[in-house]
């Protein structure tokens, strides 16, 4: 470590190679830091809890054909009643949407009737008193809807309900002091107040895109069964009965009424399928970034091995002279390791600046957060270790050079 000066002098004679290695390390660090950061962001997004009890949940997307919206009411009630009787089914509801569905209802909520601007943005879930148990939502304050609070509603003219249940996140947005239970709020453009009778721990919105990130857990549950030609049937099965219900439920529904369509591709699926398909792109991006990182590190390591091997080959004679003059094998080894450490340090210093610069640029171009310095630190350590590891094999070869080589002419 103390022989830095001769190393610097030697490096001056290999300017091009030194600069190339440093540059490669810098570029690799900049790309790997940002890629790791993107991977972590995507994985965080995938890991967000929905608030649903996700196992044993079957989703059927139902569309009525040749039935007016008004006439769907009795049919939907019939479906839900029949599903609740079906063997293997614990509970079932007809609902407008669900977390990660990809599409649903959104609106603003006001605290005072005269407010021009809404206090918080939210999604709306409509169903009966079986909604919370079927979804597996955890009520942390207040109560569930009672059957007499539930009414039918036309999907294109939904009224304002007297009672609503909201999520904890929305409660906090509306009443930061924690006093939401029992308060009245105004959903959408209505003049009629709705009383908050219950608070649910968590329920995600139907969207996973970034436009809903700021209010990802804001939901209002309303006690309406929507009369609508495109409803969703959400079925909670008994443990282990999921596959059986996935077959029996559609068959039973068709027997009940043929005036319906289940879309071919994703008409009937488990929630696990839905989650996988919705996050497929995020997972794909994370995997791609991971592969790119690994390959980049591999190529950089190979480059260091190649260039150092060449330097060792070129300096066999000098190494021999040093050995003959009393340098130990360890001295030679540490010479090459130190040399690499010096180049690597310059590389990672430039690379760290480039990583931050690249991130700042990415922030302006894409929806992305600021890079946390921890990633840069991890990247710096990783690349320095990689460099030391890569240089080890050629350096060992160098240390095995015999002193007698000093006397050979080639």
């Amino acid at each position, binding site marked *: 470590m103390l022989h830095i000066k001769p190393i610097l002098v030697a490096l001056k004679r290999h300017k091009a190679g030194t600069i*190339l290695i440093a540059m490669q390390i810098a570029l690799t660090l900049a790309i790997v830091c940002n890629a790791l950061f993107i991977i972590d962001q995507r994985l965080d997004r995938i890991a967000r809890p929905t608030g649903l009890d996700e196992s044993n949940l079957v989703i059927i997307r139902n569309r009525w*054909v040749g039935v007016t919206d008004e006439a769907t009411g009795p049919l939907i009630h019939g479906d839900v009643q029949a599903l609740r009787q079906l063997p293997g089914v614990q509970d079932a509801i007809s609902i407008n949407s669900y977390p990660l569905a990809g599409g649903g209802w959104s609106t603003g909520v006001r605290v005072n009737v005269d407010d021009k601007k809404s206090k918080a943005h939210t999604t709306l879930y409509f169903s009966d008193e079986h909604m919370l148990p079927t979804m597996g939502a955890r009520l942390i304050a207040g109560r569930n809807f009672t059957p007499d609070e539930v009414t039918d509603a036309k999907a294109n003219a939904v009224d304002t309900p007297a009672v609503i249940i909201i999520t904890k996140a929305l409660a906090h947005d509306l009443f930061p002091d924690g006093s939401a239970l029992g308060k009245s709020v105004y959903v959408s453009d209505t003049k009629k107040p709705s009383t908050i009778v219950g608070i649910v721990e968590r329920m995600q919105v139907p969207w996973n895109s970034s436009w809903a990130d700021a209010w990802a857990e804001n939901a209002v549950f309303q006690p309406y069964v929507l009369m609508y030609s495109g409803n969703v049937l959400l079925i909670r099965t008994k443990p282990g009965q999921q596959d059986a219900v996935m077959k029996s439920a559609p068959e039973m529904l068709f027997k009940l009424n043929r005036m319906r369509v289940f879309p071919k591709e994703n008409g009937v699926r488990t929630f696990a399928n839905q989650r996988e398909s919705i996050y497929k792109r995020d997972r794909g991006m994370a995997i791609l970034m991971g592969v790119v990182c690994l390959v980049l590190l591999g190529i950089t390591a190979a*480059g260091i091995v190649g260039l150092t091997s060449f330097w060792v080959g070129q300096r066999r004679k000098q190494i021999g002279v040093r050995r003959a003059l009393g340098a130990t094998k360890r001295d030679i080894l540490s010479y090459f390791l130190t040399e690499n450490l010096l180049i690597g340090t310059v590389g990672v210093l430039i690379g760290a600046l480039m990583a931050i610069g690249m991130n700042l640029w990415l922030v302006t171009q894409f929806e992305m957060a600021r890079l946390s310095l921890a990633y840069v630190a991890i990247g710096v350590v990783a690349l320095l270790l990689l460099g030391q590891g890569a240089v080890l094999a050629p350096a060992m070869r160098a240390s095995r050079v015999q002193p007698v080589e000093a006397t050979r002419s080639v």
Partner: protein
Amino acid sequence: MLSYYLDLALRSLRRNKMLTALMVLAIALGIGASMTTLTVLHVLSGDPLPGTSASLFYPQVDPRELDGYEPGKEPPSQVTWIDGMNLLHAKRADHQALMTGGSVPLQPNQSNVDPFYSNARYTTNEFFPMFHVPFLFGHGWSQSEDDAKARVVVISRTLNDKLFGGKDSTGQTLRIKDVAFQVIGVLDTWRPNPHFYDLYMGRYSASEDVFVPLTTSRDTRLEHDGSTDCWGSGGGDEEHAETQPCVWLQFWVQLDSATKVAAYKDFLTHYSQEQKALGRFQRPVNVRLPVLMEWLDINKVVPGDVKLQTWLAFGFLLVCLVNTVGLMLAKFLRRAGELGVRRALGASKREVFIQLLVESGVIGLAGGIAGLLLAVLGLWLVRLQPSDYASLAHLDLKMLLTTFLLAVGSTLLAGLLPAWRACQITPALQLKSQ
């Protein structure tokens, strides 16, 4: 001479197989990754209607109330029924069409086919001539059929194949949401990319299977899908969508010359002023008239992830190239002795330089071919992805050529520095040290 250099290059490359393989692999990976992402980007940022897109414009006016007004902001990205109809009936452009999307239940006459839903477009008669939509059988509808809310339908080739076995189905009846429609036209394959005329119905989705006059769709209460953006007292009530303060329709015009474009913009300004005088519009006049490609740009149609991947891939290629420069430098300098002999025997600097460039060119070519295979593999992987543009990711001739030029060009560039350094060797010094 070149064949001699080629021979020398191959010999030298064979001498150190590991190093050669490493260089070729690095180039191949860099090229493969950048070509895959570049092809996807190229496909996604393409012109949906080459040749015609320059004369297609998307007029925007701002009918919203004063609340929430911020100067300089874009007007709404769609129009209301009232404005759409006013602009349509003004007929100030060479062609104009008002439209929105939807999803309709089809009830085939054949008892063996279950009813199913298809994507539909509700539009006005000039949609077909304006967008140069090709017809296989029959034709579109006319102004009088728009006015009469005629029960007529134009269907896609795929739907015609499915329902009528590909035969000329004009004159046949198709039941849509319990109403009998007469098929008057069948489209030939038509898939503009992106789905530019309505970006809310999937930016890269296929064009619709069912086309119905807009007026008819309202009369038969066909459901409308896509974006509905309301303000003030607007509740998005489907049944009274004509009078609601909501934007939910797209309006396109064709303007064949620059003077017509300027005149149309003036017309939009006058229209807005007039509506403001009537009290319908409240905000200051704010009109836009982007041409098709501009409109796609404003809406950032190309997904951010795709651009990000392209940048990443090019960063990756850069590292691969720096790596190759380093390795080639090592390799060439190691052969200083050999090059010294060649120089001493009379080869000029230039000849040595060319010889070394040929060697890097060979590596570039090999890397390019391997990279091309990787790109084909990469695009196949992209096509397995669930996104709506996945099926479009194919390598075309232009991209194929670009790949080769990029591979060979970049390795030659990477070979420049090492070759230049190596030919600086003074023959005498090298020979002496031997």
